[in-house]
C-alpha cells in the first residue's frame, strides 16, 4: 500500500465515520437539503483551499487569502455602487487584480529568498488595509444580476438546493486536481515542495513556478471573494478574518503534508466538507456551543499532523 496516500484514506474514513455517526443521531443529515447547504455554505472555503493546497504542495504558505477575500467583496460592492459597470466586467477586473497581487508576492518570495509566511503577512496587511480604504462600513450589493446569481439553483429530489456557487466549488476542485496532478506545472510544484535544491537540479524553473503558484492562489482567493459576495450579498472589510487558518486546517486535514511535496486535491475537498460537517452537526445538536467547532478542528489538525509525523518516521525507518 502506498503510505503517501494513507492520510487521504484516513481523512475519507473519518469523514464517512463522522457522517455515519451524525446520521445515526439525526437521520435528516443525509437529506439533499443538508448536503446542498453543506456545499453552498463552504463554497468560498473550498475554492480558497484549492489555491492553498497548491501553495502548501510547493512548500509555501499564503496568509493573505482571508484579507484578499474581504478586499474582493468590498471592491465588487464599491465598484457596483459607484460605477455603471456590469458585474461580469468587475469580476474580470478583480480576478486580474488579485492574480497580479499573488504573482507579486510570489515574485518577492523568490527574489528576496525570504520565508513565504512573512511576505504573505505583508500581503495580508496590504489587502486588509486596501479594503479599509475602500470602505469601512459594510456595503450592500443590490445589482439585479446578483439576484440572478443567488437564485440560480437546481432543485434536487428531496427539495435540496444545488446552488450555482456550490457547483462552482466542485468545478474548481476538479480544475485544481487537473492542474496539480495532470500538468507539467503541477509536477514542478510537487518537485519544488519535495525539495527545492533537488527540483532545481532536475531542471524545474523555480522562480517561474513560485510566481505561478502564488498567482494561482491569488486567483482562487479572488474567485472565492466573488463567491463570498454572492453568498452574503454584501462587501465588508472586516469579513473572513482568519479564513487563511481555516483553509490551512482544511488542507492539512485533507492529508496534504505541510512541508510540501505530498497531498491531493480531492483530499482538500474532503477536509473542507469534514469541517463543514462539524459545524452542521453543532447546529443540529443545538446544545453544543459554536466554540466547540474551533476546539474540534484544532484537535483534528493536531491529530493529522501527528499522523503525518508518524508516517514520515515510518517511511524513513523503512529506507
Amino acid at each position, binding site marked *: 500500500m502506498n503510505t503517501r496516500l494513507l492520510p487521504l484514506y484516513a481523512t475519507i474514513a473519518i469523514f464517512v465515520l463522522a457522517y455515519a455517526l451524525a446520521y445515526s443521531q439525526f437521520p435528516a443529515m443525509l437529506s439533499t437539503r443538508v448536503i446542498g447547504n453543506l456545499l453552498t455554505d463552504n463554497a468560498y472555503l473550498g475554492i480558497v483551499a484549492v489555491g492553498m493546497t497548491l501553495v502548501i504542495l510547493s512548500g509555501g*504558505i499564503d496568509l493573505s487569502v482571508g484579507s484578499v477575500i474581504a478586499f474582493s467583496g468590498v471592491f465588487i460592492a464599491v465598484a457596483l455602487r459607484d460605477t455603471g459597470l456590469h458585474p461580469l466586467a468587475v469580476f474580470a477586473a478583480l480576478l486580474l487584480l488579485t492574480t497580479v497581487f499573488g504573482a507579486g508576492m510570489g515574485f*518577492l518570495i523568490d*527574489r*528576496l*529568498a*525570504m*520565508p513565504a*509566511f*512573512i*511576505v504573505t*503577512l*505583508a*500581503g*495580508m*496587511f*496590504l489587502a*486588509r*488595509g*486596501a479594503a*479599509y*480604504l475602500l470602505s*469601512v462600513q459594510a456595503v450592500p450589493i443590490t445589482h439585479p444580476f446578483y439576484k440572478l446569481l443567488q437564485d440560480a439553483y437546481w432543485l434536487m429530489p428531496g427539495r435540496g438546493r444545488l446552488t450555482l456557487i456550490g457547483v462552482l466549488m466542485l468545478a474548481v476542485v476538479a480544475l485544481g486536481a487537473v492542474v496539480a496532478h495532470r500538468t507539467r506545472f503541477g509536477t514542478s510544484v510537487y518537485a519544488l515542495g519535495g525539495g527545492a535544491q533537488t527540483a532545481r537540479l532536475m531542471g524545474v524553473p523555480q522562480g517561474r513556478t513560485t510566481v505561478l503558484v502564488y498567482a494561482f492562489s491569488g486567483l482562487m482567493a479572488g474567485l472565492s471573494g466573488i463567491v463570498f459576495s454572492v453568498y452574503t450579498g454584501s462587501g465588508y472589510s472586516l469579513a473572513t*478574518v482568519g479564513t487563511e*487558518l*481555516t483553509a*490551512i*486546517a482544511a488542507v492539512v486535514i485533507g492529508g496534504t503534508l*505541510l*512541508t510540501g511535496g505530498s497531498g491531493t486535491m480531492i483530499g482538500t475537498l474532503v477536509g473542507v466538507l469534514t469541517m463543514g460537517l462539524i459545524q452542521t452537526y453543532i447546529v443540529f445538536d443545538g446544545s453544543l*456551543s*459554536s*466554540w*466547540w*467547532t*474551533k*476546539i474540534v*478542528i*484544532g*484537535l483534528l*489538525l*493536531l491529530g493529522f*499532523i*501527528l499522523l503525518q*509525523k508518524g508516517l514520515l518516521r515510518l517511511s524513513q525507518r523503512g529506507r
Partner: protein
Amino acid sequence: MTVLSRIAPQLIVLAALIALVSVFYPGFLSIDIQNGRPVGPVIDILKRSAPVALLAVGMTLVIATRGIDLSVGTIMAICGAAAAWALTQGLGAGAAIALALTAGLAAGLWNGVLVAVVGIQPFVATLILMTMGRGVAQLITEGRILTFTDPGFGWVGSGVALGLPVPVWIWLATAIAVAVIMRRTALGLLVEAVGINRRAAHLAGVNATVLLIAVYIASGFCAALAGIVVTADIRGADANNAGLWLELDAILAVVIGGNSLLGGRFSVAASVLGALIIQTISAGILLAGFASEYNLIIKAGLVLIILVLQSPRIASEWRLWRDSHRAERGRT
C-alpha cells in the same frame, strides 16, 4: 557602547518619528499632571505599547531560536479569560493573576513540547493553539464578555505607580529582567547557538530540547502578562477579540528591532523599541488627523522595506556588485 550602536537605528527611527509627529501635532511631547497622574500623548503611547512590548520580549527569544509563536494573541485571550473567571468566582486578585500566569506557562509548555519533542515546525505547532485556543477561551467565558469590578486587579491595568502607569512598569521590568538574564549569563549565547544551527549546538553539548521548551514557555509567560494587562485595563475578558492580530504586531516589532527571522543574534531592547515605533506610528496617524485605515498599509510597507533589507539574496547580490565595482576601480 556596543548595545547603543546595536539599537541606534531603532532609536534614530523613533526620534525621527517623534519629530515628524511633533510637526503635525505640536503638543505631542507635553505632559500634564491631572489628579496626580501624568497625562499626555507620550504617556499614552508608553502605556498602550505594553501588550505588544511584552509579547515582543517573548517573541524575540522564540525568533532567535529560528522559531515563531503565532499563538501569543490567543494565549492572551485564554489568560485574560482565566483571570476574569477567577475574579467572578470570588477568588482574589492574587489568585487571578497566579491562575492566568499558570495558564500562560502551560500554553507555552504545550507549544514547546510540540516544537522540541514532537518536532513539528514552529509555525504549524503554534498554529494549532492559535485556532484551538480561542475556543478554549470561549469555553472559560462561556461565550460572554466576563466583567468584574475588582479594584486590586484593575490597578494592574490602569493604576499609577511612581508617576507612571503600572503597565509601563510591567513591560519595562520584564524587558530588563529578560535582557539581564540573557546577557549576564550564557543563556543568550546558547539561545543564539540553537537558532543558528540546532544540530551543531546539540553536538557542542547544548541541551537544545530543554532550551527550546523554555523559550516557548517564556513566550507564553509574556503573553500571560500581556493578557492580564489588557483584561485589567478594560475590566473584562473578551475571548473573541482580546489579543486579536497582536501576534502579527509582535512579530513586526521584533523584525523592526532588526532581529533576523532566520534566527541567531537578538536584542530584546531593540524589539521593545520596535513595539514603541509601531505604537508611535498608530498614535501619530491619529494625532496628525489621518484616518486609522492607513495603519495597516503603512505596516505592510514597513514589513516590505525590512524584508528587502534582511534578504540574504539581495545582500549577496549587493556584495557581488560592490566587489566587482571595487575590482574595476582597482584596475583603472
